[in-house]
């Protein structure tokens, strides 16, 4: 835990990302407490500018944008986390099992995974969502979850293959640990960063995709989410009639959450592979070099090093 905080302090990206995501989580969780009515209630005249009563203004239908935003946050996060969970569970299960058991099973899973990878995602989702019709956020989460696991499966599989040949896995096998235990206790903990990356990446992907589908009018228009906010704003030509708040709020909501998750993702990547860090020490490094050069220049007048250390010289 202490390490965790130390890490946060050191990695500004992670801490900033974590701050953003936590804020969103808090907003989502406390939605019932920080709102006063159903977000779909018509509370004011259409397109009221942000004011004390309606801090983010109102929509064309006279709904309060703040309430829509808060409930939309809950929806988006739920969809993101839900689909993220599905993606991670399917991807990890397939990837780890294929990588661990190998053989014909692996060939089969890899084939399916590779096929899923070369089928274009978004067009397929568009068509699916349109055909299913009235796609609620839950439905969208499920179809995104069920169609987007391939990348995770592939990455997890290759990582598992690497682990599979590690000697500690051989040692566990020799110690006669049952396969399930090797998978869950020996392999999975070592995949945590990959799983974490997959999870965060999937959340970003899902939230973006959900918003896109809804924006195109393929979602359930009654759902309160950022996507439907954009869709409704679009339908009301909010930008044209000067109701910028109706567009800006969901746009920023998505962009900022995306940023938070991305920073978190980046941070995990850096922690898992310290070489990838953007090495904040370079400034310090250059400063240090400068100091040294200055010192050397100063001391070069005085003939160097009478303080040679003791070395056993022969002859």
């Amino acid at each position, binding site marked *: 835990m202490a390490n965790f905080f130390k890490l946060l302090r050191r990695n500004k990206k992670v801490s900033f990302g974590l701050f953003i995501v936590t804020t969103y989580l808090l907003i989502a969780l406390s939605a019932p407490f920080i709102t006063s009515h159903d977000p*779909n209630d018509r509370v004011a005249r259409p397109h009221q500018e942000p004011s004390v009563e309606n801090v983010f203004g109102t929509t064309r239908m006279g709904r309060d944008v703040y309430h829509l935003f808060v409930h939309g946050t809950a929806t988006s996060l739920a969809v993101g986390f839900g689909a993220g969970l599905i993606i991670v569970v399917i991807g990890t299960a397939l990837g780890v099992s294929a990588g661990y058991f190998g053989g014909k099973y692996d060939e089969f899973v890899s084939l399916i995974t590779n096929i899923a990878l070369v089928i274009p995602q978004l067009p397929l989702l568009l068509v699916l969502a349109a055909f299913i019709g009235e796609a609620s956020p839950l439905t969208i989460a499920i179809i995104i979850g069920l169609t987007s696991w391939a990348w995770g499966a592939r990455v997890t599989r290759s990582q598992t293959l690497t682990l599979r040949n590690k000697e500690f896995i051989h040692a566990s096998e020799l110690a006669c640990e049952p396969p399930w235990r090797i998978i869950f206790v020996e392999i999975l903990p070592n995949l945590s960063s990959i799983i974490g990356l997959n999870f965060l990446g999937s959340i970003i992907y899902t939230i973006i995709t959900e918003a896109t589908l809804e924006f195109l009018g393929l979602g*359930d228009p009654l759902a309160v989410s950022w996507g439907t906010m954009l869709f409704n704003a679009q339908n009301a030509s909010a930008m044209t009639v000067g109701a910028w708040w109706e567009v800006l709020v969901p746009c920023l909501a998505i962009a900022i959450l995306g940023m938070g998750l991305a920073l978190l993702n980046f941070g995990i990547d850096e922690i898992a592979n310290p070489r990838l860090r953007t090495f904040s020490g370079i400034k310090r490094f250059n400063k240090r070099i400068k100091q040294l050069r200055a010192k050397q220049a100063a001391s070069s007048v005085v003939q160097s090093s009478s303080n040679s250390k003791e070395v056993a010289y022969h002859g």
Partner: protein
Amino acid sequence: MKNLIVRSTLAAILSSSVILPVTAAGADSDKAILNIAPVQRTSWVRNFNPYNQTTFLPTTNEYIYEPLAIYNPMQGGKVHYRLAENIEFNSDATAAVFTLRKGVKWSDGEEFNADDVKFSFDLVKANPALDTRAIWQRISGVEVLNSHQVKFTFPVPDSGAPIEIVRVPVVAEHIWRDVKDPVTFTNENPVGTGPLTEIERFTTRVYVQCRNPHYWDDSTLKVDCVRLPQLANNDQVLAAAQKGELDWFGSFLPDIDKTYVAKDAQNFKYWFPADSMVAFNLNLASTKPGNRKAFNDVHFRRAVSMAMDRNSMVNIAGYGYPTLNEYPSGLGAGYHSWNNDEVDKKFGQYSRYDIKAAKALLQQAGYQDKDGDGYVDNPDGSAIAFSILVPNGWTDWVNTVQIAVDGLQEMGINAKVSTPEATAWTSALIDGSYDAAINAYFAGVTPHLMYNTAFHSSQLDKTRMSSTRFTDPELDKLLDQFYSTTNKAKQQQTMGQIQMIVAENMPFIPVFNNPSWYQYNTQRFEGFFNADNPIAKPQPHPGNPERLLHLLSLKPKS
């Protein structure tokens, strides 16, 4: 269903085509070119086959293939003769003779005559796929009496048949008899009788259609060409309109006074006369027993009707564009000349928003919350719970339904909104597998079309208009009776009786009439129809034959 508020589904906050000023278009700047935007498409495909209802270009009907006559509902069904000079029924209205105008020529110079008419109807009969208006259900024979007279016979007395007959395009026999497959024929270089037959320029993005060199009514026609830029959605139409690039168009524009009129109040104008009627449907044949019981009770239907905040629907959901419909018969302002005042006196209270009265009515009829779930149940205790279907993406309707649900919930009725895809909505209405829905009805030349498709027992399961499954033998009889005479006064009386039965039973719950989308720009042309000059329905789109009258009344500003 011509004028549902057009679905604005496509993306773009505001999109404009960067079009050069119209005057710069082409070298023939001395020509009077009218820029119109009758439909929204993502690309123009060269297809001038007038029978291909789904994919032909919007300037095919009327502009290339002039109708025999035009019936004008706005003038109580007045006939404007075009290629025909006269229509005469026999005594029992089982046949009508169309006398054709002499001297009419096809645009290639060939003479137009009765054989062309017979050929066209035979063509439709031989190719069922072309008979999209089901004309051969209304007529039983076509006979050429002489080169300028054609006789149509009807299976039953039917004074309304000519209304449909004149909607069938008449094509040139000397061209079409050589066409191998008229269904897939694209008729790229059309030969017509209408005012604008020459395709001067054609790209997927824009096309220009100009004056027929042999037009019979040449002196009336002041517009030399129409130019159609391809515009994919409302936003693009708006952008083009704001720049004054469109002269005559019909599109949903949000906050039109702000977004359009304000840009040039002198010239940018609109007029949204009432069009098709929008009503809520309760399925009398619902598969859920509790719902079915309630829906079959006229008191329940009336209470539901009184929970509809029609003013909010019009003003908030519809931007104030639709026309309020508080006619208990659903007749609407568009057909006010047919109105039976008695009906409103007797049943008018049921089609006005009055939540208190609605509650009282429910209470009186024995609807109470029996199981304590917070919602009212049938007098026998069975539960009432239903979703109101509305096509996904039809935003204004979705909002309308939400307003309705707000009212119903307030009354204690367990109603929700459900937004299936338009396809699913349509098929649910056709096969009756739904509880409640919002729906729009045909606006015909007379109100008969709306009532007939909605309630005549022969129409069950045929279209989504018969969705409520309400039929009444008396009503059937009256509907059959309406067109069996050519006597206007008799028709008026029948229509009065029809309204009475409908209003008494309230089988649908009218809320408003869709607006006819129509905007215009007087910078370059004048003579536009508007509230002060209400000659006919003003929309430019191809479902509206009166647009020919409109085109002919336009002239360039000097």
